[in-house]
């Protein structure tokens, strides 16, 4: 039985700022503001919303958000169980499943992240200047599978994402000759896209390849400008039925296909797992997922007009380009050097908002927002007549992706 696919009817966001600069507003207040703006963008009323969806590590639980927004009834509330940003597209997919199976009629996916008020991901929440505990170091009790797993990373000082994702990137460099300059080209391209985007935190900060190469080394091969921003802000996406979306304020964007998951034995990816299969280690871990996505959609990499690829670190983007088949394994570096990712003249305009490297780090839900805008012709770096957009959520961790389409 074929079923009418759910559509995205509205998108919205708050102001995005550098971490700590959003002011005294709470994270959940920002979530409410982003949801209200996305609902208004769709031309719907808050009373129409009967579902909420989010993804791992969200502090802003749906039951509280529903109460704060005065939703008449919360019929569907869902959280994807995947680390960090890996669940962004999966949350959209779960919202779509809820709509398509009649669990709810209008589901809003949201993410609010104030790194200034909680902890900065960049330093893993640790203050290295704090005085040492005078008691001798001992083995501690892990009260969860996550902490027992982190127990195989923490005593080695492997807590920063910049170091964790350097490991597969370094291996990729070893296997294929990938260079820091190739990663830098990618960062410079996304920064150029951000220069036209008034929402972008780094919109007014142009970057050259020389700037990238001169930026301080954080966790080799990751320089500062290979790392995503640490941001405060929130965004939201409204999912509803094809029938409902048709008559609303904005051109609806169809969710053509979605996939989520991880390969065998992946767990949390290279962060805690040194034993990912050799063939998967220097990849984004998304190749199987990508194959399923292309298979179920009947589309292929050549059909994608614009892509919003999760960019926590430059190397993770490069490996995803290979995972999704935009180039062969090992050829991500030369592919970037062709200028493929550029808005103007590129074969695969990517991260037209500037991405997490240059717009804001909202765990990649802002990539879904930009995916919708790029198909509506609302992007500040518009791609002419774009009809198919790939959006991905993370890599080198369990991941998800959606294909968006405009009829």
């Amino acid at each position, binding site marked *: 039985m074929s079923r009418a696919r759910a559509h995205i009817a509205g998108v919205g966001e708050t102001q995005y700022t550098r971490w700590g600069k959003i002011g005294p507003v709470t994270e959940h207040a920002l979530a409410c503001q982003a949801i209200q703006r996305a609902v208004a963008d769709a031309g719907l009323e808050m009373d129409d919303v009967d579902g909420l969806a989010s993804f791992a590590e969200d502090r802003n639980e749906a039951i509280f958000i529903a109460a704060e927004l005065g939703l008449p009834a919360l019929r569907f509330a869902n959280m994807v169980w995947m680390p960090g940003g890996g669940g962004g597209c999966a949350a959209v997919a779960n919202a779509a499943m809820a709509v398509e199976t009649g669990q709810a009629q209008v589901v809003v996916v949201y993410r609010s992240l104030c790194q200034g008020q909680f902890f900065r991901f960049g330093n893993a929440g640790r203050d290295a200047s704090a005085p040492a*505990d005078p008691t001798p170091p001992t083995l501690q009790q892990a009260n969860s599978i996550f902490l*027992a797993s982190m127990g195989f990373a923490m005593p080695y000082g492997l807590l920063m994402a910049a170091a964790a994702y350097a*490991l597969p990137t*370094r291996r990729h460099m*070893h296997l294929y000759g990938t260079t820091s300059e190739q990663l830098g080209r990618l960062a410079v391209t996304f920064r150029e896209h951000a220069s036209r985007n008034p929402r972008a935190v780094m919109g007014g900060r142009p970057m050259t390849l020389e700037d990238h190469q001169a930026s301080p080394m954080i966790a080799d091969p990751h320089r500062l400008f290979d790392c995503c921003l640490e941001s405060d802000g929130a965004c939201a996406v409204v999912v509803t039925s094809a029938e409902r979306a048709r008559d609303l304020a904005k051109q609806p964007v169809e969710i053509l296909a979605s996939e989520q998951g991880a390969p065998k034995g992946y767990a949390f990816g290279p962060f805690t797992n*040194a*034993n990912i299969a050799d063939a998967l*280690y220097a990849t984004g871990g998304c190749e199987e997922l990508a194959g399923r996505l292309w298979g179920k959609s009947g589309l292929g990499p050549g059909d994608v007009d614009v892509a919003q690829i999760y960019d926590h670190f430059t190397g993770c983007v490069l490996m995803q380009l290979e995972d999704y088949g935009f180039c062969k394994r090992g050829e991500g570096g030369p592919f970037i050097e062709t200028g493929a990712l550029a808005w103007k003249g590129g074969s695969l305009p990517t991260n037209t908002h500037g991405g997490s490297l240059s717009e804001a780090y909202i765990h990649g839900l802002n990539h879904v927002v930009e995916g919708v805008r790029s198909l509506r012709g609302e992007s500040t770096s518009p791609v002419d007549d774009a009809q198919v957009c790939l959006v991905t959520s993370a890599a080198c961790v369990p991941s998800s992706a959606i294909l968006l389409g405009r009829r």
Partner: protein
Amino acid sequence: MSERFFPDSMPPPMADTTTLPWWQAPAEHRLVVQRCTSCQHTRLPPAPVCPECRGADADWQEVSGRGELYTYSIVHRPIAAGQELPYVVAVIALEDSGGVRILSNIVDVDVAELEVGMPVELVWEDMSPELAIPRFRPLRA
């Protein structure tokens, strides 16, 4: 006490009852991998079920601590007070382990000599009388 490479303030390891036996071996300066007694598949981190044959029984196989550098990162930001910078986070493919790799550090090294594939050997760091951490250094021929 053995040579020290990292300060006491480093994040301590954490274990649950599934992983605890692995952490008890370092107290005796033994490095082990978990081995399925049904199919002999070896694994880290320890798990309650063999991912290959789904057998529940396992024992602990001691390894030599020799291996080769699979990948690494030279980290320039401290995670703990008093830490020497930079430090090297690494994945080591362990010899005579049935193909198991381990996350650890490369210590006692000039970072310019780091190279994927280089031979390394185990060195124990006694963080306290109760806690030894396995780290690795370039193999001294």
